[in-house]
């Protein structure tokens, strides 16, 4: 005992040190090693029980319990029966003795250990487990403990995480299911007990009247004028509710005493967990459900809003109020999609209960806008979750049920949505609507169910109107001004983002995400009701635009500067709101441009032309007046002007797509003899001109960067999408060709303009254009490209090679120009051969120059990278134009530089990130070459394999270096995928049906590559592992890799073995699914060999198993050959194999097993 006491003190010292603030990580590791070793000792359990009984230090208690937990879960079979009994009875005694005095987490852990033991022994070796637990409910002292037990049982027995044999898992589920009715009855009884206890104090608040009128609605919507006002349907619906068994629904419980609150919280939580795994069935009685709803209704009552702060025990698993917990339990039932037929009435009853609550929630309250404001936000979240589940899972079941008034439900949802006070809660409601809209879209597409949607038209229009009000200052100023614009303003200053593209970045302002979510929902409604919704947006936009266009009359000249003479205190805010709304509505007009595309184009073209006209007018007006430099009384108006202006250009850009479709081939008429006309040619050209004017005229007038960016983006979009002779005919565009190369202020803007200008000259015009002016364009393009590349073209390479300082000073210019060309080449990817040839003709000198420069700049990684990046794109797009000889010479140059001067080795071994990037690009380049289908590049295959397998792979094979390994394996994958015939010649035997023993060539190289793949499966890098697994799978599905003779004979067994071992050791746990599928495909080469020979062989070589276990594992590995069953069987096999090994590891050495 004395030694025990001493070691306990030592242990307490260690634990206190471990959790001490100043203890270092390495000291912690040392302590953990000591603790770990202690726990490994045989008989450690005895000491743990002793310490538990004698320590006052809760860290020590936790440690001892964890050690015992480990012993129970990993070494139980290795203990003698009497030892097991001692551990079990001691722990259970501890629980009973300490559950009220110990900290709750010690109690929870004690309970967990007892349940863990039951998980292994109940009922065979622990028959009274359940009886003991249930009997705890009989004494008020142990009720709480009883519920904690039930919850832990539900968690650990129904959904165990620790290893357990598969058959035991199944057995436990079955045994536990038999106990479910008892558990439910017990919990239900406890909840009712709580209600009974407070029944006497129930205040006689009358139930709310369902016909209560709701005069104050957020809008004059179709929804608020629905029959909800008359209440006829709803009152019928709820009539049955009030007179039914749930008569107490509308009644309010007084605040509960803390003990009852604790019991109710725990019981509701426990029910929630049970509901998560038991199937819907008659076990969940209406009686139980009504009790839960009674608690759920507490949340709808502001009095019960918060739980009794400070009074509630730590027992409450989450500290949530009872209403929230009860809604959680209900939602658990709601989330089950599998509804037995006889359960539908029951669900209907449940919805009635909930919608009754919903009605209470949206009821008007005196002195506040709605009751929602008074409630716990968690409760509202739960309620919204209920609505989401209802709409997504169950609505289609009840939509056509005559007993379910779906329009009234939507009316309630509408009110619930627009009475939310918190943005997140409002978004949750929008999500519910979004699911509803998906449902309607699916319906509309499915059949001629248009009628099914007509009944919702009014509701949807009301919803769109509600949302549009939400995003306009005119209607919702207070809320909108609360939103933060911060990030957008930062971007505005830094000028490093392009307007209208913000949606892609993660860093968007609160305002922006609020606005987009609303707008996207409006757009979604518009897909169902395009005309109605567009006019809802068009009208306010038109109104605001009128005022905007009339502001000219408020300009005055003063001291040579113009200023806006609107300065009155009330007028400025009004103008501010108007401008903000205008810019929002402009975005909406841009977003809805998609409604005018495709089939809809002809019938909506008049409106489209009107819209574009107005936008062009706004653009010209804004640029002409230079509103961005007008002085304003308050600063905010200035930024409003900038924003509206930028938005006008962005919105025009959104309509470029429409214009490009209007130019489309479907409007072309071909006459005999080949003449073509386009029926809208004049309109197209006019609009194109107008847009080009809008885009170009803003570039040179000193506008803020934001507006200039929008102009440039518009120009670029026009150059890419709208191809016509118009641009080159315009003075505004022509003069840009002269100015643009010398714009130095902003490199990005300059790059974009140059790209646009090249596009205008280069990209092909539509067929109906009579004169394509190819020669003139070619000439202009050459001159133009020369104008910004001549510096590089004229370089004297020889001189540069000797002049270090010249190399340095040229580098930035070189990078800049190469990157512009790289972008332009990239853009050619979608064009025809003629354009590629034309462009290649103009830039070939530069490309060749770049290759010559490469050896000179080989130490200068940023230039190297730029050159290789350019070459990668050139190989992708201009390969044919470059020609085989040129390509070969280029690759040879790179190969020489890399291999002869050891740059590769140096780059890889010194771990210089920039140099590694260069290697990466080079491998990418080779990847393109080996992927080339033609014969001309096949000569590179052997060299590439040698480079990969003899030069690079040996350096990286044993290191992590993912930066090199990833592109290396990707190159190998491409090489195999595109050059299968290099290894496997189509065999005549196959065509004769003689099997797939096809001949292999270059076998040694093939095996070398496969071994590299195999090697990667034994290494920890998960990214490479995953990549290579996918590569193998893809080769198998394309070429039946696993079935090839060479693979079957010498590799297959090794691969399966390695993959199964990875599963057993759980070393790549994240990839379980993928690995199992690969094992399946490998086994599928020959299932009978797999089951008959491989599995026994694998088991024989697997240590840590005894003969019986091997036999059992073999016998339990069912020979199903479909993927889902096979996957399950593999999981079971691996699970049981691990379980046996764990058990065996706990046996004392030399233990004889019978």
């Amino acid at each position, binding site marked *: 005992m004395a030694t025990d006491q001493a070691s306990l003190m030592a242990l307490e010292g260690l634990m*206190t040190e471990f959790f001490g603030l100043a203890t270092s990580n390495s000291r912690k*590791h040392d302590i953990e090693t000591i603790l*770990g070793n202690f726990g490994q000792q045989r008989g450690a359990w005895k000491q743990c029980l002793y310490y538990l009984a004698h320590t006052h230090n809760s860290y020590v208690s936790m440690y001892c319990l964890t050690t015992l937990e480990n012993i129970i879960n990993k070494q139980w079979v290795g203990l003698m029966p009497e030892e097991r009994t001692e551990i079990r009875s001691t722990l259970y005694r501890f629980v009973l003795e300490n559950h009220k005095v110990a900290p709750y987490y010690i109690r929870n852990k004690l309970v967990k250990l007892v349940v863990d033991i039951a998980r292994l022994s109940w009922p065979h070796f622990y028959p009274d487990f359940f009886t003991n637990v249930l009997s705890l409910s009989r004494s008020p002292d142990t009720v709480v403990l009883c519920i904690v037990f039930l919850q832990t049982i539900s968690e650990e027995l129904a959904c165990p*995480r620790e290893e357990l044999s598969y058959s035991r898992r199944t057995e436990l589920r079955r045994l536990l299911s038999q106990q479910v009715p008892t558990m439910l009855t017990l919990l239900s009884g406890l909840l009712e007990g709580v209600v009974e206890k407070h029944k006497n104090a129930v205040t006689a608040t009358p139930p709310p009247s369902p016909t209560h009128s709701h005069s104050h609605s957020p809008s004059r919507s179709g929804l608020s004028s629905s029959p909800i006002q008359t209440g006829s349907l709803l009152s019928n619906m709820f009539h049955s509710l009030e007179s039914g068994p749930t008569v107490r629904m509308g009644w309010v419980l007084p605040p509960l005493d803390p003990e009852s609150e604790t019991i109710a919280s725990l019981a509701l939580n426990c029910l929630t967990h049970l509901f998560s795994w038991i199937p819907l069935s008659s076990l969940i009685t209406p009686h139980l459900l009504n009790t839960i709803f009674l608690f759920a209704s507490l949340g709808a009552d502001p009095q019960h809003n918060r739980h009794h702060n400070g009074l509630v025990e730590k027992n409450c698993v989450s500290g949530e109020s009872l209403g929230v917990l009860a809604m959680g339990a209900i939602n658990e039932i709601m989330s089950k999609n599998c509804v037995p037929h006889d359960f539908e009435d029951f669900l209907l009853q449940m919805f009635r209960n909930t919608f009754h609550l919903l009605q209470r929630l949206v009821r008007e309250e005196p002195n506040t806008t709605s009751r929602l404001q008074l409630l716990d936000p968690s409760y509202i979240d739960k309620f919204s979750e209920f609505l989401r589940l209802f709409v997504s899972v169950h609505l289609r079941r009840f939509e056509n049920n005559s007993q379910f008034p779906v329009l009234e439900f939507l009316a309630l949802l509408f009110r619930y949505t627009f009475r939310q006070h918190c943005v997140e809660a409002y978004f949750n409601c929008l999500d519910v609507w979004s699911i509803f809209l998906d449902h309607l879209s699916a319906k509309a597409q499915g059949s001629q169910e248009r009628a099914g949607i007509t009944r919702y038209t009014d509701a949807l229009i009301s919803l769109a109107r509600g949302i549009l009000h939400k995003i306009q200052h005119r209607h919702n100023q207070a809320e909108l001004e609360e939103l933060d614009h911060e990030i957008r303003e930062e971007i505005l200053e830094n000028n490093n983002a392009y307007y209208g593209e913000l949606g892609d970045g993660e860093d968007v302002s609160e305002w922006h995400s609020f606005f987009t979510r609303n707008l996207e929902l409006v757009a979604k409604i518009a897909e169902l009701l395009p005309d109605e919704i567009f006019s809802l947006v068009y009208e306010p936009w038109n109104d605001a635009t009128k005022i905007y266009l009339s502001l000219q009359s408020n300009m005055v000249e003063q001291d040579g500067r113009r200023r806006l003479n609107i300065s009155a205190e009330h007028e400025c805010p009004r103008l501010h709101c108007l401008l903000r709304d205008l810019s929002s509505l402009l975005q909406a007009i841009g977003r809805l441009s998609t409604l005018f595309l495709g089939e809809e184009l002809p019938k909506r073209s008049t409106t489209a032309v009107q819209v574009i006209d107005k936008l062009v007018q706004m653009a010209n007006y804004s640029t002409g007046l230079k509103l961005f430099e007008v002085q304003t009384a308050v600063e905010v108006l200035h930024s409003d002007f900038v924003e509206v202006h930028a938005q006008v250009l962005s919105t025009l850009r959104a309509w470029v797509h429409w214009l490009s479709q209007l130019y489309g081939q479907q409007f072309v008429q071909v006459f005999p003899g080949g003449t073509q006309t386009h029926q809208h040619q004049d309109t197209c050209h006019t609009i194109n001109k107008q847009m080009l004017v809008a885009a170009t005229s803003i570039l040179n007038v000193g506008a803020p960067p934001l507006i200039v960016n929008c102009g440039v983006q518009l120009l670029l979009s026009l150059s890419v999408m709208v191809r016509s002779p118009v641009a080159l005919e315009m003075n505004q565009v022509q003069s840009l060709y002269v100015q643009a190369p010398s714009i130095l202020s902003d490199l990005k803007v300059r790059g974009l303009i140059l790209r646009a200008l090249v596009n205008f000259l280069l990209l092909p015009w539509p067929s109906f254009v009579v004169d394509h002016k190819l020669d003139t364009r070619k000439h202009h393009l050459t001159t133009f490209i020369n104008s910004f590349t001549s510096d590089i073209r004229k370089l004297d390479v020889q001189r540069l090679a000797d002049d270090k300082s010249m190399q340095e000073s040229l580098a930035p210019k070189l990078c800049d120009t190469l990157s512009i060309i790289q972008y332009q080449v990239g853009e050619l990817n979608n064009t025809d051969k003629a354009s590629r040839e034309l462009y290649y003709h103009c830039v070939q000198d530069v490309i060749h120059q770049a290759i010559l420069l490469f050896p000179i700049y080989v130490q200068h990684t940023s230039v190297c990278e730029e050159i290789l990046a350019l070459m990668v794109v050139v190989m992708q797009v201009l390969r044919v134009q470059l020609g085989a000889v040129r390509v070969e010479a280029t690759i040879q140059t790179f190969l020489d530089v890399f291999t002869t001067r050891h740059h590769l080795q140096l780059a890889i071994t010194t771990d210089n990130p920039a140099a590694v990037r260069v290697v990466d690009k080079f491998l990418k380049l080779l990847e393109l070459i080996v992927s080339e289908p033609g014969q001309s590049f096949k000569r590179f295959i052997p060299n590439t394999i040698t480079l990969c397998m003899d030069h690079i792979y040996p350096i990286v094979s044993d290191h992590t270096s993912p930066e090199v390994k990833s592109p290396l394996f990707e190159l190998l994958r491409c090489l195999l995928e595109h050059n299968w015939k290099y290894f496997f010649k189509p065999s005549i035997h196959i065509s004769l049906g003689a099997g797939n023993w096809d001949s292999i060539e270059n076998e040694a190289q093939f095996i070398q590559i496969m071994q590299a793949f195999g090697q990667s499966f034994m290494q*920890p890098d998960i990214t490479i592992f995953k990549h290579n697994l996918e590569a193998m799978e893809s080769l198998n599905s394309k070429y039946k890799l696993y079935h090839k003779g060479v693979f079957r004979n010498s590799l297959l067994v090794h691969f399966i073995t390695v993959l199964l071992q990875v599963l057993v050791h759980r070393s790549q*746990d994240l990839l379980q699914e993928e690995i199992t599928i690969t094992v399946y495909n490998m086994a599928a080469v020959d299932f009978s060999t797999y089951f008959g020979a491989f599995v026994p062989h694998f088991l024989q070589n697997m240590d840590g198993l005894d003969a019986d276990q091997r036999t059992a594992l073999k016998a339990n590995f069912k020979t199903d050959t479909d993927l889902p069953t096979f996957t399950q069987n593999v999981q079971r096999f691996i699970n049981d194999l691990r379980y046996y090994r764990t058990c065996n590891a706990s046996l004392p050495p030399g233990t004889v097993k019978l």
Partner: protein
Amino acid sequence: MHNTVECVDQSCWAQEEPDSSTAFTPGKYKIVLLGDGGTGKSSYVSVLQNATFRKEYIATLGVEKHEISLTTSHGPCVVVLWDTAGQEKLGPLRDGYYTDANAAFIFFDVTSRVTYKNVPNWHRDVLRVCSDIPIVLCANKIDVEERKVKSKAITHHKKHKMGFYEISVKERISLKEPFEYLLQQVTKEPDLTIKDSVDADLFRGVGELSLLQSSLPQEQG
């Protein structure tokens, strides 16, 4: 009278009784990170500490403690992050690490279903030790294209009182938000924000780049 149910006689446990509501000095918080191995906990911590993203995976053994100082809109605070190992490498103390924690992150990997399947287990483990601490669920690796756990399938956080964020430690997407959420909850200051100080620049990194890339015209002519 019943409010004393749990504390009638704490004398034998009184010494160093870890209690999540009183154990921390104001402004100093213990936050634990849990979740399956390889889901990005240590990478997250190392990004928070302004180191670079860890490309290679080194499994954490037991626990690693990291202290970081932050400036918030409500004053300075020190957070001690307890980065725990995924299940296989959990040390001898396992859930013992969670004692005294003021808040917790639970990580999973959207490219691996099993890691999401295990979220309830981690959650249940931490709740048993700290019944009422704020918890945030982080769905990591949303930058990876072949995502297996879709947003719609993630429902665990809706069943419990917990924050939820889809993040990418690698691409530095939404790294600040879950942290801020926990601090708001712990301090009960819903408006608290983490100030961008020198070592908090890390929260914004790749954003600018991706904006630039996306500025190329997406439409096909």
